[in-house]
């Protein structure tokens, strides 16, 4: 049995930022991740991190308004204010830690333009911003000697009398299950993009943290808000950063027209992601596409700009498509990228379960509402990763001696053993692929009642099939077959909350674009959807959106 003040589950940007803060506050801190920290999916964030720097003449309230508008007025404005007000200090702190942000002539930080924002306020490192930030935060964790349970997999949270007291996890290197008791837990386990296929997300983005918190009784809020990124590759779904359009790249249809003129005459290619993805989908549906793709055209930017500021995009284009972006437009389409929905928290990362905090993509504070602005996700991880650690530090002062019971451990050992002992049946991969394809089909860029109902029924069918999934590898050492089978369990839970949230919301807002209900309905649906676990079923309810100073208006780009 291990014991800590704070156990942080997930070692991406939110988790590591929380860890560095918790260590600074003197907590006995541990981070647990199913992969080495630098393999976390934060590494794939490309374009940058937003902040309104006052010294640069920018105003955090302008950033807040762009974010509110981007969210289609579903974001909680108190949370958005916190994030945008604190962004500047956090970005400067990252620079002080060693992030090699791009500079102006005079050596100050340089910002690039990004979608849905009226001024450039996205700070960046070429097209590898997330990777550099992640490696720098890992450097800081190394410097502070943070305890890391590396390649450990969580099977359950420990909830005693309604309070979170740690987690049950196994060491993937040995297969041994352990009780990790903690006075507080910060869930920072990232998104769930693999619930869809294709997806820009890594194979590890299976919604583990979302499902763990949900099974422990937390609300998953606004789960229908699934972001389709406008520029992804067909087939494997790999992302091409919005940074390309931030640097001036065009979107063209098969007729060579910059079609965004029709949909967002002012912002053009830099409208909000939901707006651009819908525009692309309409072009594709109406046949102005090639093999279901439109084109991202960087040719006019020139080879040297592409290689210096968008080098990773060029690498992807060359390696995966055999295309030189300076010479040939690349085929792109909308692809699942991010989930705005997540574990409902307050501005301090606290969930409704005492002792359980959440930050980053698995959390919903909510700062992204119906649609996240590009480069606000990295900001979200840093601000709320830090804040959740600060709040957890205060909370642990109120927690006395931890219990010693390992009852939960024995339950979990028995459950996993039962899974391993199942007779040969279905393979996890078959069920996972069927689930993911049906989710993309039903919860697409555009949705309707019938399609969402089909997807919802399919999730139930996959839940039934899961009972017949068997684990082929019976070993203990690095048994990825077992890990994937457990991940599939999480994915089915998360998928259910997505279809349920989607069926609840009887309007179109942000990423939730219903062809059968095309208008936003502020009168009835300026509300969050909440899906709770209820026995073997679900319970749904709505909650209010916090408005501070920006009343909803028509959203035009």
């Amino acid at each position, binding site marked *: 049995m291990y014991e800590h003040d704070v156990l942080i589950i997930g070692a991406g940007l939110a988790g590591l930022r929380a860890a560095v803060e918790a260590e600074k506050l003197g907590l006995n801190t541990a981070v647990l991740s199913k992969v080495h920290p630098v393999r976390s999916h934060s*590494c794939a964030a490309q374009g940058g991190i937003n902040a309104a720097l006052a010294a640069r003449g920018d105003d955090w309230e302008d950033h807040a308004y762009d974010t509110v508008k981007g969210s289609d007025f579903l974001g909680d404005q108190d949370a958005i204010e916190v994030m945008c007000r604190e962004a500047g200090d956090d970005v400067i702190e990252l620079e002080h830690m060693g992030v090699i942000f791009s500079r102006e002539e005079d050596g100050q930080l340089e910002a690039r333009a990004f979608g849905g924002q009226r001024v450039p306020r996205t700070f960046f490192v070429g097209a590898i911003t997330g990777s550099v930030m992640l490696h720098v935060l890992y450097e800081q964790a190394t410097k502070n000697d943070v305890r890391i349970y590396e390649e450990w997999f969580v099977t359950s949270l420990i909830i005693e009398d309604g309070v979170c007291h740690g987690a049950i996890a196994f060491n993937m290197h040995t297969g041994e299950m352990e009780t990790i008791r903690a006075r507080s837990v910060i869930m920072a386990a990232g998104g769930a993009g693999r619930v869809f296929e294709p997806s820009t997300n890594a194979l590890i983005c299976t919604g583990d943290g979302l499902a763990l918190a949900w099974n422990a009784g937390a609300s998953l809020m606004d789960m229908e808000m699934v972001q389709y990124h406008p520029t992804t590759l067909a087939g494997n779904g790999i992302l091409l950063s919005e940074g390309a359009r931030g640097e001036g790249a065009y979107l063209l249809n098969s007729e060579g027209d910059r079609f965004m003129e029709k949909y967002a005459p002012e912002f053009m290619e830099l409208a909000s992601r939901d707006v651009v993805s819908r525009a692309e989908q309409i072009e594709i549906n109406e046949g102005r596409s090639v093999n279901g793709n439109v084109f991202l055209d960087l040719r006019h930017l020139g080879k040297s700009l592409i290689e210096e500021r968008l080098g990773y995009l060029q690498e*992807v284009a060359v390696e995966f498509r055999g295309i030189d972006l300076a010479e040939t437009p690349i085929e792109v389409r909308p692809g699942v990228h991010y989930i705005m929905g997540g574990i409902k928290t307050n501005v301090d990362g606290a969930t409704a379960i005492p002792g359980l905090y959440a930050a980053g993509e698995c959390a919903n504070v909510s700062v992204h509402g119906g649609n996240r602005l590009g480069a606000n996700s990295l900001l979200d991880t840093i601000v709320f990763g830090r804040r959740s650690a600060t709040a957890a530090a205060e909370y642990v002062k109120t927690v006395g001696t931890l219990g010693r019971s390992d009852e939960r451990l024995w339950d979990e050992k028995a459950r996993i053993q039962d899974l391993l002992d199942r007779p040969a049946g279905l393979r*996890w991969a078959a069920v996972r692929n069927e689930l993911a394809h049906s989710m993309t089909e039903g919860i697409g860029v555009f949705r309707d009642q019938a399609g969402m109902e089909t997807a919802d029924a399919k999730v139930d069918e996959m839940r039934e099939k899961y009972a017949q999934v068997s684990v082929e590898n019976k070993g203990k*050492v*690095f048994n990825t077959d077992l890990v994937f089978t457990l991940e599939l369990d999480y994915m089915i839970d998360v998928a259910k909350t997505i279809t349920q949230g989607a069926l609840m919301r009887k309007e179109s807002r942000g990423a939730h674009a219903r062809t059968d209900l095309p208008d936003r309905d502020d009168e009835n649906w300026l509300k969050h959807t909440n899906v709770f676990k209820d026995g073997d079923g679900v319970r749904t309810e709505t909650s209010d959106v916090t408005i501070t100073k920006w009343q909803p208006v028509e959203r035009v780009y």
Partner: protein
Amino acid sequence: MPETLIANLKVQRYDPESDNPEVYYQDYEVEVEDWFTVLDALIKIREEIDGTLSLRCACRASICGSCAMRVNGEAKLVCKTRLDSVWSPGESVTIDPPGNMPVITDLVADFKPFWDKVRQVDPYMQPTGPVPTAEYLAPNKDMVHLAGVMNCIMCGACVSDCTVLEVDDRFIGPAALAKAYRFVADPRDGKKKERLGVLNDDTGIWDCTRCMQCVEVCPKDVDPMGRIMVMRDMAMEEGFTNTSGARHTESFYNSVKRSGRLNETRLAIESMGVLNIPGQISMAPVGVKALIKGKLPNPLDHKIPSKAAVKKIVEHSEEPSK
């Protein structure tokens, strides 16, 4: 309809839990598409053919660094290695875990030694002086230059195929040294000299044999060896000249400058340190053997005819770089 493509993969397996754990190869026949990467084929095996095959992978887009392994004996990031670049129909392609690391199971290596070495170089920025309220001012060209090194995703391909690590596992190695360079070359870091002092020690920058293998296999063009060479220059500029490596460099240079060619006997003696009596004695048996076999070079300089031209080159090299 295009014909069905069947690829043959010969995959290294290792099950530490078996009664008699040993490394063996398993052949898989897997139906592939012509655009498949090696990773696509491996994923298909574990999803559809053999759930017991273990490997690491995550992003599929050459940015997380999980999937470095050996393909036909050479380290590659398999997510960005197209199958048709390493395999043609009728042949088989061999997949092994990365080298120079213990194997946990199948294609999964134990990266603990890798990260221990990264930790050895104090891998975090150490600014000195007062912390500004705003950002540190820094030239963009330096940041762009560092981005070339921070392109490193710590995949371990360079470590896998490092020929020095193969014979001496104490060498800090290409990945950790490239990481060290990232701080040494950062204008914001205040410990350049201290860092170079440590890297100058045994197992550091002078242990690289310049075989180029790390440069060759790096999937992100980080150029670890190039970074190591720059740090050698920096170390000597900072006055760290009391190493056999630094003396070797000096002796080599002086010999060419003096005579237009390399005097290998003097090079050996001067590299060891002329006054390093125990060192000189330790080399004596090699010298005697070389003498017996007629391989001992003439210890006296013999000048080459085009000495003037060489001198010009040397003089040019002494001009400050532009």
